[in-house]
C-alpha cells in the first residue's frame, strides 16, 4: 500500500517535470515569436523599401506621369503628413492639457467623476478611427465643405484626443500630492497650480504624451481617407487638400506598375523610421522622467 502510493507520487513528479519543461518551452517560444515578428516586419519593410529609396524620392513632389512610373518623389506626402500630425497634435494638446489638468485639480475631490471620465476616455480610445473618419466626412458633406488639411487636422485631432488626455492624466496623477497642497497653501489659484506648477513638474510626461499622440496621428490612414483628400502639391493653406504618407503608401501599393509600387515601399520605410524615432525619443523622455520621479 505504502509502496504503491510512493510510486504514484514519483510518477506524478516525473509528469510534473515534463509539464513544467513543456509549458516553459512554449512560453519562451511565444516571447521569441513576438520579438521575432517585430524584427521580421522591420527587416522586410527595410528590405523592400531601401532599394527604392533615393534622394530624389525624398526631395521632390510628383511630376507629370508620376503614377505611371515617371519622375518625382513623395515630398508632398512627407510634408503633408508632417503638417497634419503637427496640427492635430497641437489641437489635441491645446484641448487635452487643460482637460487633464482640470481632472487633476478641480475635480480632485470628486474621485468618482474623474474615474467616469477616465472610463469614457478609454472607451473613446477604443473607437476605430474609420468611424471618426466617416462621421467627419458626413459632417463635411452636410456643411458643404471640401476635403482639406484643416478637416483632416480636426478629425485626427479628435481621434487622438482621448489618448492625449489619458497619457497626460497618467503623468499628472503621479505628481506628489504634497506639491498640490503646498502650492494651494501658498495662495495660488487652481489654474496657476495646474498650468504653472503641475505642468512644469510633469513636463517630461507631457512630452511623452505628445510624442505618443504624434505617432498615432502620423500613422493613421482610416481617419484621413475621406477628410484630407489627396494631391500632388504641398498645401499652402489649411483649406487645401493634402497628401499623407499612409495614404500615399496605400494608393501606390495597389498600382500594377513596379516603379509606383516601389515608391510605396520607400514611403513605408520613411514612415517606419519616423515611428521608430518617435518611439525611441519617447522612451528616452520617459526614462528621464522615471529618474526624476525617484528623487521624490
Amino acid at each position: 500500500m505504502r509502496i504503491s502510493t510512493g510510486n504514484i507520487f514519483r510518477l506524478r513528479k516525473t509528469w510534473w517535470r515534463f509539464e513544467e519543461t513543456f509549458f516553459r518551452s512554449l512560453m519562451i517560444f511565444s516571447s521569441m515569436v513576438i520579438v521575432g515578428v517585430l524584427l521580421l516586419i522591420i527587416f522586410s519593410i527595410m528590405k523592400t523599401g531601401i532599394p527604392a529609396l533615393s534622394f530624389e524620392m525624398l526631395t521632390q513632389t510628383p511630376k507629370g506621369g508620376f503614377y505611371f512610373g515617371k519622375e518625382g518623389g513623395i515630398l508632398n506626402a512627407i510634408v503633408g503628413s508632417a503638417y497634419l500630425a503637427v496640427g492635430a497634435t497641437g489641437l489635441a494638446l491645446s484641448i487635452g492639457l487643460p482637460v487633464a489638468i482640470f481632472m487633476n485639480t478641480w475635480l480632485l475631490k470628486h474621485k468618482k467623476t474623474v474615474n467616469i471620465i477616465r472610463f469614457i476616455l478609454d472607451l473613446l480610445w477604443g473607437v476605430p478611427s474609420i468611424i471618426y473618419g466617416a462621421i467627419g466626412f458626413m459632417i463635411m458633406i452636410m456643411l458643404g465643405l471640401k476635403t482639406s488639411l484643416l478637416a483632416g487636422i480636426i478629425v485626427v485631432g479628435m481621434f487622438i484626443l482621448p489618448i492625449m488626455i489619458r497619457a497626460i492624466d497618467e503623468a499628472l496623477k503621479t505628481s506628489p500630492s504634497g506639491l498640490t497642497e503646498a502650492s494651494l497653501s501658498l495662495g495660488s489659484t487652481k489654474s496657476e497650480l495646474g498650468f504653472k506648477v503641475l505642468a512644469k513638474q510633469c513636463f517630461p510626461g507631457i512630452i511623452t504624451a505628445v510624442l505618443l499622440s504624434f505617432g498615432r496621428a502620423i500613422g493613421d490612414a482610416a481617419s484621413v481617407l475621406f477628410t484630407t483628400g489627396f494631391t500632388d502639391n504641398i498645401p499652402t493653406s489649411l483649406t487645401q487638400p493634402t497628401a499623407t504618407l499612409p495614404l500615399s503608401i496605400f494608393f501606390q501599393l495597389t498600382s500594377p506598375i513596379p516603379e509606383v509600387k516601389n515608391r510605396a515601399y520607400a514611403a513605408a520605410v520613411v514612415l517606419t523610421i519616423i515611428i521608430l524615432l518617435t518611439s525611441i525619443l519617447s522612451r528616452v523622455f520617459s526614462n528621464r522622467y522615471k529618474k526624476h520621479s525617484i528623487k521624490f
Partner: protein
Amino acid sequence: MKPFRIGRLVKERVNRVWMTLWTVIIILTPVIIGGFLLWKSSMLLEENSLMKLLGSSEWKPLSGKFGFSPFIISSLWVTFLALIIAGPICILSALHLTYYAPSFFMKIVQPAIDILAGIPSVIYGVWGVVVIVPFISGHLAPVFNAETSGYSILAGGLVLSVMIIPFILNILIEIFNTIPVELREATLSLGVSNWITIRSVLLRKAFPGIISAIGLGLSRAFGETIAVLMVVGNVTHVPEGVFQPGYPLTALIANNYGEMLSIPLYDSALMLAALILFAIVVLFNLASRLIIIRYENKYR
C-alpha cells in the same frame, strides 16, 4: 494689488467654465457618435427591418438591396482567427515575462512590445502584402490543397493577430502583476512546481482579467481597417473557409465612401455599417473594462 487679484480670480472663473464645457463634451461624445450614426442610418432602417438587413447576404446597392451578412461574417472570421492566434501567444508570453524571464529579458521585450504597438496600420498592411500574402499562396495553401491568391481571410487574421498582440500582451502583464505575489508564494510553499502553481491557482485567479483582455483585443481587431483591407481580398460573399477572400465591415466603409453619394440610401447603409461596428466595439470594450475594474477592485 487689488486689480491684479481680481484679474486672477476672473481668469480662474473663465478657465473653470471652458474646462468644464470640454469635459462635458468629452463625456457626451460616445452618445453623440452613437446618436449621429443612428440618425444617419435611420433612412435605411425605416424601409427595412434591422433583422432583414443583418440576415440577408444580398448586397446590390444599385437595386437598393443591402444585406450585411457577408461583411459581418467576414469581420467575425478575421477577428476570431486573430484572437485564436494571438490569444495563446499573449497568455504564454505574459506568463513568461511575469513569472519566468530574468529582468534583462524584460528590458529587451518591453521596447519590442511598445514599437509593435506604435507601428501604423498601413505598415502592417505593406508587410502583409509583401510577406504574408505570398507565403499563403506559395507555401501554405499548397499544403492544404487550396486554391488562393493569398488575399484571404487567413491573411487578414494573421496580420491582425500581430497587430493586437502588443495590445493584449500589455493588459495581460498588468493583470498578472496585480495578483498578489503572496498568493504565488503561499502556493509554492505547499510544494508544487512553478507551472502547477500557475495552472491551478494563478490562471484561475486571473481568469476574469484574461477574458477581458481578450475582449479588448476583440474590439480592437474588429475595428481595424487599413491593414485588413489591404490583405483580405474584398470580395462580397459569405466566406466559407480561411483561404477564401472576405470583405469586413471596416473595409466596406473605407472602400465605398467615395461613391456613396451617387446611389440612393447608400450613405445610409454605410452609416449603418459604421453603427454596427461602433455598437460591437463599444459593447465589448464596455463589458471588458467593467470586468477589469471589478477584478482590480478586489485587490485594493
